[in-house]
Each structure stands twice: as structure tokens, then as C-alpha cells.
């Protein structure tokens, strides 16, 4: 999922970012509430992880604005306050779920997964198939038949994206927007490079290329051979 993390504590944000990326989410981090809201409004995010106390604009205000504009966004609030009234306030403001700090990463991953099932976007699903190609989204493993494929995180994300949207055409720019965080120093060349790496790995493993190239337009998942 494309996640926006709004957290002003850098010490917490960094390991969170690393963890979420390990879980193959595309995460962008903001430490200021006002800037975070701007980014959410600009669009492109499916889930917002909002710390309740933020400089600029606090979590509650962000959620209210997001709901006022009826943005299709899932909101998980992170709060140090677990008093019932605070949680109720948060949920009333429009959050979909909440987590009390300190929390275990696994708990966070589980909550995100359960929110994904509610997502307006098509659910990632636990596994995707294409011929003998199996992608276990939860475990982050890809295999051809019984043969495991050693894909990098980005390669996996690319493959997964295509398997989730069979037949749909995506340009490099679109892939860049979808699978790379906002401030990443990446361009369309990066997309091309990763795709090439992916295709080479698949070819070496004896997997027929699942991705079709339409020159000048983009890429899409091809039919099962």
C-alpha cells in the first residue's frame, strides 16, 4: 500500500519506515502536520499513519479535513494516550483504527493488513497467481512452481502490482508514482532498470516473461501462456 507516515519523533519514524518498507509498502514520511495534509490532499495515498500530536496540524485536525473532503483514505492513528475518551474522540474524528504507543511492529503490520481488507482499492490478497508463478504477498515470497525466486523488495513490488492489475496498462511515470515514495531520488530510468532486472531474474529461472511492453505507452501483465 502507499502509506503516509506523519510522526514527529525521528527516533521512532526511522525504524517504522524501515519496517514498513520491509513489508513492501511504499512509505513517505512527514514530520509536520500541515505538510502531511497537503500531501494527502494531493492524493496518491491509501493509508495514513498519523501521530496524534504533531507540529503544524495535529492528527485529529488532519483526519477531520480528510473526511471533510471525502478523500478515499484509510487512517490509523498512533497515540500515546489510551484513555477511552481520547480513543473515542479519535475514532469520532474519522480514524479507522488506532494503535497505542508503544506497540510491537507485528501488531502494526496486522492492523494494516486488516485495514487493507477494508480498503477501497482492490485488496492485495494473500497470494497472486499467474500460471505457475505464485506470489505470497504476506510472506513476500515469489516462486515458480516450487522453485523460489530471489527477488528484491522493489522487484517483488513491481511484479505484485502487475499481477494485481491484470491487463491494465501502466506507463513508467505511473509506476514511479505508485511504487516509489515522493522524495525518492528516482526517475523513469530507475523504473526501467528495475523492470529489466526483474525480467532477467525471471528469465534465468526459466519463467516466461509475464510483462508485455507496448513501446511508447507502457507495460502490462500478459496472458498466461
Amino acid at each position, binding site marked *: 500500500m502507499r502509506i503516509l507516515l506523519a510522526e514527529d*519523533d525521528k*527516533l*521512532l519514524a*526511522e*525504524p*517504522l519506515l*524501515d*519496517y514498513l518498507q*520491509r513489508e513492501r509498502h511504499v512509505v513517505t514520511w512527514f514530520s509536520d502536520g500541515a505538510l502531511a495534509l497537503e500531501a494527502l490532499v494531493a492524493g496518491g495515498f491509501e493509508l495514513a499513519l498519523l501521530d496524534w500530536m504533531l507540529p503544524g496540524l495535529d492528527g485529529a485536525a488532519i483526519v477531520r479535513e480528510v473526511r471533510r473532503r471525502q478523500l478515499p483514505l484509510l487512517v490509523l492513528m498512533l497515540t*500515546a*494516550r*489510551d484513555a477511552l475518551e481520547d480513543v473515542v474522540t479519535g475514532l469520532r474524528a474519522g480514524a479507522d483504527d488506532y494503535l*497505542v*504507543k*508503544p*506497540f*510491537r*511492529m507485528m501488531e502494526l503490520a496486522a492492523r494494516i493488513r486488516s485495514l487493507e481488507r477494508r480498503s477501497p482499492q482492490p485488496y492485495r490478497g494473500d497470494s497472486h497467481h499467474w500460471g505457475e508463478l505464485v506470489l505470497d504477498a504476506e510472506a513476500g515470497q515469489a516462486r515458480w512452481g516450487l522453485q523460489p525466486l530471489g527477488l528484491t523488495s522493489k522487484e517483488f513490488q513491481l511484479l505484485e502490482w502487475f499481477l494485481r492489475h491484470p491487463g491494465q496498462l501502466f506507463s513508467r511515470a505511473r509506476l514511479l508514482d505508485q511504487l516509489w515514495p515522493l522524495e525518492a531520488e528516482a526517475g523513469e530510468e530507475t523504473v526501467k532498470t528495475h523492470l529489466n532486472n526483474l525480467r532477467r531474474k525471471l528469465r534465468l529461472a526459466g519463467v516466461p516473461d509475464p510483462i508485455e511492453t507496448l513501446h511508447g505507452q507502457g507495460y502490462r501483465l500478459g496472458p498466461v501462456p
Partner: protein
Amino acid sequence: MGRPAKLVQRQQLELWLLYLASLAGVLLLFALVLRGVFQQSQLGTIRSALSVVSEDLASLPLPAPGSERDLQESRKDFATAHQQVEWFVKGRAAPVARLGEVRTIGPLPPLAPGKRLIWQQGSDWIALVRPVDSSQVEGHAPGTVWLRVSEGLENTEAQLTQLDLALAASVGAALLLSVLMARLLTQRAVEPLQRSLSRLRQFSLDASHELRGPLAALGANVEMGLLESDPAFGQQRRRFEAIGQATAQMEQLVDDLLLLARQDEQRIEHAEPVDISALLQLQVDLNRDGLALHQHQLSLELEPELLVLGQPILLQRLFRNLFDNAQRYTPDQGAIRVSAQRRGGRVTVAVEDSGVGLSADQLPRLFDRFWRASPDRGDGGTGLGLAIASRICLAHGGSIRVTSQLGEGSCFLVDLPAYQAA
């Protein structure tokens, strides 16, 4: 600010009662003194009146039999003033002449030769006896005729009664008014206490919440550190694990502090009937590993279906803390006994251990926060376990006691009100 804590309410009630009691005492004293002074003043007035009258009459000749009526006419005020005059002659017990309102007040007192004026007082009269001037006495030896002027005290009595009623009414009204005033006053008096407690509680809450931020950062970094660490680098992993454990301890402490701060309000929300025996059984089951590890001998005597009205999570915490305590302070192969029964309208739970025990001077501070039997912190507790247990008991309308013998063991007794299904 919320409802004042029970401690503050109790304080306020004590102050209120004390204030009313002392005020009532003062008013009563005041009323008695006033009454006494009034009474003495009245008597004083009567005495001087009698003095004057007797002096006046003593210079008159003895009224001859028959002439009393004339004298009576000229001294009409005797009757209206409830006064009476009697003349006595030595040797004769009954008065030889009488004037005024008839009132039998008994014989003359013994007459000492030197004394000139003698006062007599009865339950509702007062009298003055004086000798008649020898120059006025004909046919009698000097010093043998006396006159006694007496006055009834009915008027005074009536006035005193009126005063009593007035005093009673005003003291009553004053006290009634004070009841209200006292309430306001005592409320003002305990406000600083209430504010202080509130501030303390708020501080505890705020501090705990603030601590959660850094704890979250610690935990997250430890988790990632462990995930990313090279499994071959065992030493590093152990360091991360140690940090993780210490962080978990701190998290527990923060949660405990929050629990205590909230419980200071001594209110139970969402109470439901809870089966204590089932809860205890569950607690024991959860601790099986610990029991096996230390080879503790456990004996359970639980009456089935002991119901208490309360919050299951809190009650679970209560017994968990007591059980953890028993395990921690009992040496290997020691015995732990948990019993629960219902007596009358109460459910009592006893957790006994054969552990190190406590000395008599340690007992009063046992339920204080952060108090520990030994200064050594390695036992893994937060130091708040018993303070929390005590708070939870109180919040459920129960109590907790401990008896202990140094070197032999301790017994914690929890007493809770039983739940009566309506």
C-alpha cells in the same frame, strides 16, 4: 476537576462534624452562662427589694391583731409582688401577724444571737429575716420579735422559662444555619487538598503518557535491530534482547503508574459479575511454567462459583499481582496455597506462601508505592504490584490484609463483597 476523592470527602465530613459539634458546644455554654447571669440578676433585684421592704417594716410597730387589714390596704403591693410579711415572737413557732400573699414557708431558721440579717431560700421563694427595732416593741423584750419578708419566685421562673424558649429557638436556628454554612466552609477548607491530589494525579498521568513516546522509539529500534542483526553475531543480539527486556519493564512500569493514577478516582466503570474461582484457576494455569521452574508446591481450595461485581481485567490484575508476589518471594520447593470461599455476604481469598516473610515493622508500609522488601531490584518487580492490588481492592469495595512471620511466610487476605443476583 471531577468528583472529589473519597479521602477528601471523608476529610470534609470530619471537619464538618467537628465544626458543628464545637459550635453547638459554644452556643450551649453561652446559653447556660446567659441564663445563669440573668437568674442571678433577677435574684439580686429581689433581694435588694426585700432588704428595703424589711428595713422599712422593721421600723413600724408590731401590727395589733385586727389592724392587719388597714396595713394590708396601705401595702397592696405586697400581694401583687407575691410578697409576704410575717412577724414572729420568741417562743411561738407560728407567726403572730401576717401581711400579703399567704404562703406557708416553714419555721424560722435557727437564730444566732449575733446575726442580724438571715436569708432563707426555698424552691420557689426567698425570704429575709430581721429583728424588729426594740423601740417599736411594746410588751415584748428586746430581741424577741422578728419579721420575715418573703417573695415568691414565680415571676422569675416565668421569665426564665421565656428566656429558655428564646435561647432554645435561637440556638436551634443558629445551628441550622451553621449546618449550611459549615458545608460551604469545609468545602473551601478541603479545596487545597483536592487540588493537590488532582495535580498529583494529573502529573502521574501526564508523565506516563510522555514516557510512552521515547518507549515507543526504543521498542521500535530494538525490534528492527533484532530483525536486521546478523544471526551469527550472537553477542549483539543478546545486547538488543537485554535492551528489549529493560524497555518492556519500563513499559510495564508506565502502565502500572497509569493504572494507579486512574484508580485514585476509586470508581469502577462497566462492572459485571465475575467468577472469582474461575479467575483464580486461570491465574494458576497461566503460571504453571513458573511453578514448575521453581518446583513450588501449589494447593488450591476454591469454592465453586464465587461471584463478585467488578471489572474482570482489574480483578485479574489483582490476583496476578498477589500470585506473582508469592512466587517471587518463595524459595524453590516452597509451598503456595490459594483458597477462596464465601462467608456471609463476603468473598474471601487467601494467598499464602512459605517464603521469606516480613517483619512486623515492614508490614505497615507494605502497600506503599515502590516499597520493596529488599533494596535489591533484581527480582523483576515494578515495586507497584501491591500498591495496585490494594487500590483495586478498595475500588471494588473490599479490603486487603497481610499477616506474616519472618522466615516462615506471608498470607495475603482479600475480602470483597459478594455479588447477589437480583
